[in-house]
C-alpha cells in the first residue's frame, strides 16, 4: 500500500456508522378516516391495541371533517399528533386498483412531520387474520439501512415486548450487475476481484450497522430480538418473501427522500404493493 487513496480506503472502511438509541415519544395519535363518525370511532378503536406504544390520547377524524387535501393538512396541523394512522385512497374508490396511495396520502406523507401508519383499507378483503392484532414481528425496509437511526428507533418502539425486529438490507442485483458489466470492459480493473470485493464491502457495512443496533438496544434494556437480513437480489421480491416468510405484522419504511420531491422509491413501491400489511412511513 503506497497511495493516499489506498490508506484512505482502509480508514473509510474503519469508520463505522454506529446506531444511537433514541426512542421516539409517541404521545398522541390521530386516526384519519373517510368513514361516518360512528364507523370511524369503531375503526379507531380496532387499531388502538395494535399501536400499544402510543401512551397519550387518541383522536379520530371522520370523513365529514375534510374533503380536500388542504383541509386534511389543516386538520393535522391543528391537532399536532405524534403519529398519524390512516389508510390508502381516502374519499376515493381507487383503493380497488393497486397502483397508488391516493392523493390525500401522497401529500400527507410528504408534508407531515410525524410518522404515518398506513393500514389496509377497511373495505379490503383478503387481509390476513393475524393483521392488526399485535406487533410481534416488525421489519425495517430501506434501500440503504446504514445510519437510518430514526427508522430503527421507531421500529424498536413499536415492536411488542419480547417480539422480533427484522432489520433488512438488500443490495439490488440489477444495479450491481450493470456496474460489473461496465467494469468487465475496463482492462485495468480485475472483474472477479471487483465482484468479490465490492459485494463483500456492500454487505459488510449494513451488517456492522445492524450489529451496532443489536448491541445498543440490548444495552438500553429493550426486550426484543434483532434478526439480520443482509443479502443481494431483486429488492421487491426479497422484501415480499421476507415479509411473508416471517409473518411480519408491521413494516417500517423511510418516506422522505432528500434528493427528490417524490416519496422514497423503495418505500413507495412497497407501500403500493403490500396492501394487506400495515406500514409505518417515517
Amino acid at each position, binding site marked *: *500500500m*503506497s*497511495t*493516499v*487513496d*489506498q*490508506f*484512505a480506503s*482502509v*480508514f*473509510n*472502511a*474503519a*469508520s*463505522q*456508522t*454506529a446506531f*444511537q438509541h433514541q426512542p421516539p415519544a409517541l404521545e398522541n395519535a390521530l386516526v384519519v378516516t373517510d368513514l361516518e363518525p360512528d364507523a370511524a370511532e369503531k375503526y379507531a378503536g380496532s387499531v388502538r391495541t395494535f399501536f400499544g406504544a402510543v401512551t397519550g390520547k387518541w383522536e379520530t377524524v371522520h370523513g365529514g371533517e375534510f374533503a380536500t387535501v388542504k383541509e386534511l393538512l389543516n386538520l393535522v396541523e391543528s391537532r399536532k399528533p405524534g403519529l398519524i394512522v390512516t389508510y390508502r385512497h381516502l374519499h376515493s374508490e381507487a383503493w380497488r386498483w393497486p397502483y397508488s396511495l391516493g392523493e390525500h396520502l401522497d401529500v400527507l406523507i410528504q408534508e407531515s412531520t410525524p410518522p404515518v401508519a398506513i393500514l389496509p383499507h377497511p373495505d379490503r378483503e383478503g387481509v390476513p387474520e393475524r393483521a392488526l392484532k399485535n406487533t410481534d414481528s416488525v421489519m425495517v425496509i430501506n434501500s440503504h439501512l446504514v445510519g437510518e437511526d430514526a427508522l430503527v428507533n421507531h421500529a424498536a418502539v413499536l415492536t411488542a415486548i419480547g417480539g422480533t425486529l427484522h432489520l433488512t438490507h438488500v443490495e439490488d442485483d440489477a444495479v450491481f450487475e450493470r456496474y460489473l458489466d461496465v467494469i468487465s470492459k475496463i482492462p485495468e480493473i480485475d472483474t472477479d476481484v471487483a465482484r468479490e470485493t465490492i459485494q463483500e464491502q456492500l454487505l459488510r457495512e449494513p451488517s*456492522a450497522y445492524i450489529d451496532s443496533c443489536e448491541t445498543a438496544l440490548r444495552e438500553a434494556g429493550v426486550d426484543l430480538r434483532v434478526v439480520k437480513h443482509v443479502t443481494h437480489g431483486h429488492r421487491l421480491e426479497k422484501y415480499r418473501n421476507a415479509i411473508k416468510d416471517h409473518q411480519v405484522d408491521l413494516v417500517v419504511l423511510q418516506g422522505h427522500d432528500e434528493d427528490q420531491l417524490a416519496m422514497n422509491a423503495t418505500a413507495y413501491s412497497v407501500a403500493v404493493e403490500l396492501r394487506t400489511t400495515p406500514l409505518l412511513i417515517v
Partner: protein
Amino acid sequence: MSEAAESAPAKKKLHNPLHVTIMVVLVTGLCAFLLHNGTEQKFVFGILLAVTLGMLALEKINKAILVLLGAGIALLLATWQGIIKGGEMHDGHYMPTYIQMVDWGTIGIIIGSTIFVELISRSGLFAWISVKILKVSKGDPFKLLICFSGLTVVFSAFLNNVTAMIIVGSLTIVACKKLKLSAMPFLLAEGIYTNIGGLLTLISSIPNIIVGTAANIGYTQFLLVAGPYCILAFVVTLYLVRWLFKIKPLTDEASKAEAKSMVDAFDEWETVKDRKFFYLSAMVLGAIILGFALHSSIPVLKDMGLEVIAILGATVMLVIYPTDVEGVLNEVEWTLVLFFVGLFALLGVMGKADVLSMIGEWLKSPLSSGSYSGPMAMMWSSAFFSGLTDNIPLAAVLAKVLSGFQSQIGDLAWFAEYGHLLWWGLIFGAGLGGNFTPIGSASTVVAIGILKKEGHNITFMQYVKIGAIVVLVQLTLATAYLFGAEKIGLIQKLDPKAAAASGQVTDDNGTHGHGSDGH
C-alpha cells in the same frame, strides 16, 4: 526537494528525449574539449557536477536518469583522463571502479526498509495504530493536532517521510470529514512534523543515513542527540501551529460528547485482515527497531553494518507473508535506488578529480570562521539550500567535504575543535530546511497534493509565510540546542585518531564506514 520525491503524487514529468540527448552531447563535448585543451580537471568536472546538480534542482528530468547520465559522463571522462581505472581484480573477480564507489550500505537500508515497511503496512499495523491514536484525541481539535503530530513524528522516524505523510494524511482527511473540521491546518502541520520525525534516528531519513554513517555516528548516539531536540521542537512547533492556525480545543460538554462518539465509531480492527499476520508484523517491527538500536552490541552483526538489520527484517517479513512476493518487491523505490547508485558514482569521480577538495577549500573559510559561526554557517546555509532543492545531493556533497576535512584532522585544528558541531549542523540544517517552501520536502508536496484533491489550493507564497516562520523558529531552537548539547557533553568532540581513520576510509573509497556508537 527532500528524499523520495519521486514517490510524491502529481510529480510525473516527461522530459523531451531530443533535448536530453542534445544536452548530454553538448556537456560531454564541452568537458572533453576543455580537458583536451589543458583546463584543470577539477574545474571541468566541477562544471559537470554543477550542471548535474543544477538540472536536479530544476526537476525537469527524472532524477535517477539525470544522475545516471551525469555519473556515466563523469566515469567516461575520468577513465579517459586516467583519473580512475575502469576496474581492478579483487579476490579473483573483476571489480568495476564505480561499484566500489557506491555506498551499498545506504542502498541496502533503502531496499530492506522499503520491503519490510510495505509488508508491515499490509498487515494493517500502521493503520491500526493510527486509529488507536485518533481515538485518544476524543475528536477535540487541539488534541487531534497533538495526536496526529505525534503520530507523524513517530511514523516518519521509522518509515520514510512520504509514507508517514500518506498514512497520517489519509486518516486526517477521513477523520476531519467525519468531524466536520478543515483538514488544512492538520495536513500542513503533518508536513512540517515529518521533517522533525525525520531527524529522530539515524535511519529516519536519507540525509541522516548519509551524513551519520560518514560521520561514524551510531544509531543510539544519534537518537540520544537528536531525540531531545525532536521533543523540544515538537512542543514548540505544536504551539506555533496552534497559534498560526488558531486551533482551539472544544469547551462545551455537548460538542465534546459528539466529537468523541464520532471518533469512537472508528473500528481499528477493521484495518486488520489477518490478526496472526498483524501480531507477527508487530513483533518483527519491534525486533527490527531493537536490532537498529542495539546493533553495535550484537555480536557478528556489529561488524556487518546497519543494512543487514533492514535486509534481515525484510527477509523475515517475506517468509511470513509469501502471498505476493513480486508485488511487494515492485514496491521498492527503484528510482531512488538508481539515483543513489548514480549519485555515489558521480561523487566518487568528483572526489578523485579533486572537485570535492576544491569545494572544501571554498567552504573552509566560512566553516573555519569560529566555533560558533562555523557550525551556524553550516546549519543555516544547508537549511536554506534544502528548502530550495533536493537535500540528498546536498547532504552527500557536504558529507564528502566534511569527510575530507576529517581525514586531515591532525592538520586542521579548527576541525578538531568543532568538527563534531559541523556534522550535526549539517544533519539539523538538511533535515529542517525542507519546511521552508512547499517544494522543499516531498512530504509537504504530498500534504499539499492531498489538500488540492480536497479542494484547498495553497499557493507557494501562502505556504512560505507559514514555512518561513516555522523554519526560523526551528533553526533558532536547533542552534541553541546544538551549542547547549555540546556544553553538557551530549555531543562530544571527535577522537582525532578514530576520526582521521574513518575520514580516510570515506575519502579514499567514496564509501562510508559503518557506525559503532559514539564518534
